């Protein structure tokens, strides 16, 4: 289950970009975003 805060952030950012969130697998995007952020955080630790 994706983090609801991240899910909401993804939806909001897509809407800001003009993309219809209903065309996107929001859970997939949210999960990958969390992974990338964790990886970026580890790089700069």
């Amino acid at each position, binding site marked *: 289950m994706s983090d609801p805060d991240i899910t909401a*952030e*993804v939806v909001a*950012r*897509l809407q800001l*970009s*003009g*993309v*219809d969130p209903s*065309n*996107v*697998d929001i859970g*997939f*995007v949210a999960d*990958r*975003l969390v*992974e*990338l*952020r*964790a*990886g*970026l955080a*580890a*790089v*700069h630790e």
Partner: protein
Amino acid sequence: MISLRDQAAAVAAGSVTPADLVEQSLSAIGDDPFNAFITVMADSARAAALSDLPEGPLRGVPIAVKDNMATRDAVTTSGSPIFAEHHPSVDARVVQRIRDAGAIVIGKTNLDELTWGGTTDNPTFGRTSNPWNPDRFAAGSSGGSAVAVAAGYCAAALGSDTGGSIRLPAAMNGIVGLRPTWGRISVEGVTPLAWSMDSVGPMASSVDDCALLYSVLVDDHEQPTRQRPNRNIRLGVTSFFFESLDADVAQVYRRSLDVLDDAEFQLWNVDLPDLARYIPPWLVAHMVEPAVQHRDLLLTRPLDIAPHVRDLLALGLVISGAELDSAQRFRAQFTASLTCALSDVDVLVCPTVPFPAVPHGSMTVTLQDHEVPLFEALPRFTGIASFAGLPALSLPAGESSDGLPIGLQLIGRPGGEADLLSVASSVEDVLDWRTPQGVI
């Protein structure tokens, strides 16, 4: 099928005609059982063979071209239904270069949609199969080009490489593929994916044929480097290259290093701690750039983009500027540390892919008892050169226990293609493992 160089020499000597080579190629393609091509250009290739071809080093030789490169005489789909009827008015610069050298474009090869992927499993144009085992994937995104060479349809092909799209299918199909230094070869007329990593290069069944095709593509006519004694060649390895490998790949990699050591190459351990951390920042850049490139398509034609590509483009759009900046800061440091390491060695040597070709449709791969998403495991080693803009080449080094090819990747110095090809030729001679032409 004989080599690219021998085909060109045979035409020059008059022992074979361009029309003979085109007919041989079309006969080999037949009904294209591996789905290597989106468009077979039979009519235009036959017409070209009978025309007054330029007197160049590739005169009369059929070559396949990835379908993200503009051709004035054939549709250029970029693997997308959105461009299924796109007829460019001019050739991509690289297509023009091979035609100026006398080559004949035999067809446009299959690829991942918008080149965003590594499987050549295209929802619109079908999946390309691996000629070594048609139940296995060809890798991608230049899978059609790799299979065209491996299956003996033509002696060489053009591919493009952003995160490994030349080297991955080269390794999986037992051929040689060169990703040149970023910026070395023109990408004009090639549909972009990620502007700071896109590179166009040759794919062929030997290092020598890759070198010949590369010499035609490059603007500055760099002199080939003469082969040096093996004892004067330093090969760099590091612990990261031995981690998370399939057992067969680990065995081929270790055996290759042993054979090279026995042949008096110098194996050097290099310290590259950043390798263990590079993948997330690399993926950040690799997500953002395609999203910016194809944002208009995502806004105006979302349902004409395959769902998995749409999701990846969406991911690129939600990454923030601060996150991209963080990734780029790491990239600068990463590139500097690799370049510094390459001042001590001639090339870095690692497996091209951590595993042999997987069954079609695989989403994960098991490496040392860990199940890893395919899209993460596949570019583990190819992303290194992509992120740092370095030249890199994959050549066949052996096969798995079930007879699938395994590739070895050599990463060279920036702008050092001549050296890289020279070292690769020496390594190829020593490993002495070459794909039989037309593995079918």
